[in-house]
């Protein structure tokens, strides 16, 4: 490697980019928190004294754990139904489509809809069930909303895991005399355990980083860390305090992330076996009709709730004022395409720029990390992931601190938005690249070298064409995230570049709910289209598994 004339510059460029846009901002944040003329713990000490911050730490962890459990359980129920209940195709597809909704919408749409549905005088809680004492604010409301928003992540992960459990193993267990429940418990679930653990961690991490839902539903009685950090800065003008809160959040976030990586990296003694020769058309037998019925009820309820939420959003977008003046009107959409057009245009421009830049970056990084050797490779991989692992609030604040003035004044430009997205959301593309490359024997690259091609030529002629699906997957994820992100970018919007999600949040706080809903619907439609196009293209490229929503949205 030392003598490879192409590898070294490539690694340097990538390292440079990662150092500048991942490590430098975090470093500045660190300095802000822990340096005050000299090294100082004042900022952190100040936090410990404030009850809202202490409560926020506890609440964040508690909420993350609860959402993790609930989300994973729900995801498992759905996954079992999808994989093991022999559902008719149209139901299976319908299930997928509905479950996708929370993942492709701005993260707080569920929260808003729930206020309409289950808040005081909510359409469901009051108008249907006549309950008046339902309190949607606080822990339970937030828990419900986040579970609905993030269980699809668990669902997609577990669906893949369950589908990969070799049915031959279960058949052997049956042939040895075990009954259904025993087989499920001792074979299926055991093999799926790492997947379940992984799903739990993914959902918990999402909850931990969730900024917008608790902002709307948490109320003052249930503070959580990302929201507190946001409020500390925007409400109390305390950058240092906000930065310190970020660090409180950093520790559990990194711990969860490390745990999650550990589960996915275990190749030796892999629990999930994928054999090339699957037993010819084994009937999957591990779900009894009673189990299917029970699961169907649970999942059916959840599906109904999700649908109601989104119908409410849609309804709010096409009536003048939901709840008061229910006359149909397209004024909200009119606004979206006139006054809101700048935000829509800006968001699309940013998203479209992100796609090739981030997509290519992800592929190059994936290649460097999984196919080459150089000192510091593991560190580069880890560093490149950090902005993804960290809650968006931390990244947003770090960028604000680092890039606001010299030496690099970038706030207010499209550049910083693109950079933020690229370094936060390229991981899916990198992972997809690694996954695709894992299926390609390294001897192919060696063959190219043996025929006289230098590293970069091999990359261009052999690797890149073969990882095209991964490139596409990465680009799709970037597009989706760019359309729906809020927690980091709320700190980075400016006079010149506005984003639809920020406008939605503003709309909610300004009670322009119709407008906010119209924007939301637009985002959902655009993202849905992107996913559909990507999936179709992938299928044509014969990389079906990559094009599935799981890869695009779960990561």
């Amino acid at each position: 490697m030392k003598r490879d004339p192409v590898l070294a510059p490539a690694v340097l460029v990538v390292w440079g980019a990662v150092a500048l846009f991942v490590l430098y901002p975090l470093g500045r944040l660190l300095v802000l928190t822990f340096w005050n003329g000299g090294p100082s713990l004042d900022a952190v000490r100040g936090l410990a004294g404030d009850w809202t911050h202490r409560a926020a730490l506890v609440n964040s962890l508690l909420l993350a754990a609860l959402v993790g459990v609930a989300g994973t359980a729900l995801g498992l129920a759905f996954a079992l139904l999808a994989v093991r209940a022999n559902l008719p195709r149209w139901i299976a597809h319908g299930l997928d489509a509905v479950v996708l909704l929370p993942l492709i919408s701005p993260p707080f749409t569920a929260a808003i809809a729930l206020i309409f549905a289950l808040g005081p005088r909510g359409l469901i809680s009051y108008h249907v069930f006549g309950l008046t004492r339902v309190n949607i604010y606080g822990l339970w409301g937030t828990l419900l909303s986040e579970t609905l928003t993030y269980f699809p992540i668990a669902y997609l992960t577990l669906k893949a895991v369950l589908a990969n459990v070799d049915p031959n193993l279960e058949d052997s267990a049956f042939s040895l005399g075990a009954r259904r429940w025993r087989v499920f418990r001792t074979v299926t679930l055991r093999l799926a355990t790492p997947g379940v653990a992984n799903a739990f961690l993914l959902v918990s991490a999402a909850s931990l980083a969730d900024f917008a839902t608790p902002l709307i539903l948490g109320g003052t009685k249930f503070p959580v860390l990302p929201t507190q950090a946001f409020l500390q800065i925007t409400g109390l003008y305390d950058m240092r305090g906000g930065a310190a809160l970020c660090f409180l959040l950093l520790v559990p976030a990194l711990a969860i992330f490390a745990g999650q990586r550990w589960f996915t990296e275990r190749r030796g003694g892999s629990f999930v076996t994928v054999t090339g020769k699957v037993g010819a058309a084994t009937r999957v037998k591990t779900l009894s009709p009673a189990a299917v019925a029970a699961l169907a009820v649970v999942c059916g309820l959840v599906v109904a709730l999700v649908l109601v939420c989104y119908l409410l959003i849609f309804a709010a977008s096409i009536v003048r004022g939901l709840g008061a003046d229910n006359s149909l009107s397209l004024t909200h959409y009119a606004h979206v395409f006139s006054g809101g057009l700048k935000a829509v245009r800006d968001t699309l421009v940013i998203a479209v720029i992100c796609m090739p830049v981030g997509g290519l970056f992800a592929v190059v990084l994936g290649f460097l990390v999984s196919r080459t050797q150089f000192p510091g490779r593991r560190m580069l991989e880890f560093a490149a992931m950090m902005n993804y692992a960290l809650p968006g609030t931390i990244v947003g604040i770090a960028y604000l601190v680092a890039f606001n003035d010299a030496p690099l004044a970038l706030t207010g430009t499209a550049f910083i938005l693109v950079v933020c997205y690229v370094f936060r959301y390229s991981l899916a593309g990198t992972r997809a690249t690694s996954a695709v490359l894992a299926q390609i024997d390294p001897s192919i690259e060696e063959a190219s070298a043996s025929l006289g091609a230098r590293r970069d030529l091999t990359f261009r002629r052999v690797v890149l064409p073969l990882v095209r699906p991964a490139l596409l997957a990465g680009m799709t994820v970037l597009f989706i995230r760019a359309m729906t992100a809020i927690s980091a970018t709320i700190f980075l919007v400016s006079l010149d570049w506005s984003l639809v999600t920020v406008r939605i949040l503003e709309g909610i706080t300004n009670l322009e709910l119709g407008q906010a809903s119209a924007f939301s619907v637009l985002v959902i439609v655009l993202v849905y289209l992107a996913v559909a196009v990507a999936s179709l293209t992938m299928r044509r490229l014969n990389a079906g598994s990559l094009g599935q929503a799981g890869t695009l949205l779960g990561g």
Partner: protein
Amino acid sequence: MTVERGQRLTLEHVTKRFRREGQSEVAAVNDVTLSVEPGELLTLLGPSGCGKTTTLRMVAGFEQPDAGRIYIGADDVTELMVYRRSIGFVFQNYALFPHLTVFENVAYGLRVRRLPEATIHARVSQVLDLVGLPGYERRFPNQLSGGEQQRVAVARAVVVEPQLLLFDEPLSNLDAKLRVQMRAELSRLQRQLAITTVYVTHDQEEAMAISDRIAVMRQGTLAQVGTAEELYRAPRSTFVAQFIGRVNLVESRVLARSGGRVAVALWDASLSVPGGDGYAVGQRLSLVLRPESLALVAESAKPAEGEVVVPGIVRSRTFLGEKVEYAVEAAGALLQVVAYDPTRRGVVEVGARVGVACDVTAVRVLGAEP
């Protein structure tokens, strides 16, 4: 493509160490010195883990030796990057580019060298004819059978007219019959092109079938280098004796010595075998008895001229069509005996009491010169 293309390959004290997790360093290749004559096909033969593939990869440039030098012709290529060496490498799994047609696969190296389009076309057609795949240009690798993919891989490697051709167990993914057929073709091709070739395999029959010389490797070092005949007739170590073909090694000792021959004990008799001067009377040694030099005779049969007989009991019998393999318990050991043409000559049952007759002219001392 009948240009003389032969360069000498020389390895001098080549060593490669690997460090495994949590353990101390292990030398995968330990001080190997070897040369391959221009146009020769040398096989690196040995069990898995013996270092043969690592050695091959160092010659190719995929790995870097920790010590030692490698020369192609007069050029020291030890430090040279893979893509600068003039080699053709055929992989065990063929490593065809899945996204390119057969034509483009074969043309790849020529395109890298920026040859004119017309030349590329001509050479590709020529080489595809050579490997027996005319008209396959437009197909994709996933539309080819294993044997066809193999040939494309070979075509791709030779079309660039390399100075050195390297094969890494190219036939191990094919089924048995195809393997036999393909190795004959590879051998024919190599002779026709006269490119210096290094071939790696763990299959000793394959090695013997195609090689000019064989280098047997064990745990990173060369155990013995020689022609197939040399290795078979005069193995220098137990390992080589047992690795090449099947063998009975019988413990013996020197009874007397005279004029380049030694008298050794074999069962109850003594016989005279070529030996040389390096032996002392009473010295313990092993005798190499190949199964085909043993025969089953009637238990009470008298030994013929030039024969030594020992009584035994047949413990197992394996009918393999053209031959039968017996394991006979005699003189405290289990002897392997093979008899050909059993359909005509008859088969002995398990448990029968027999005599094992050994042709004394076929006996060799282990480690002696051939």
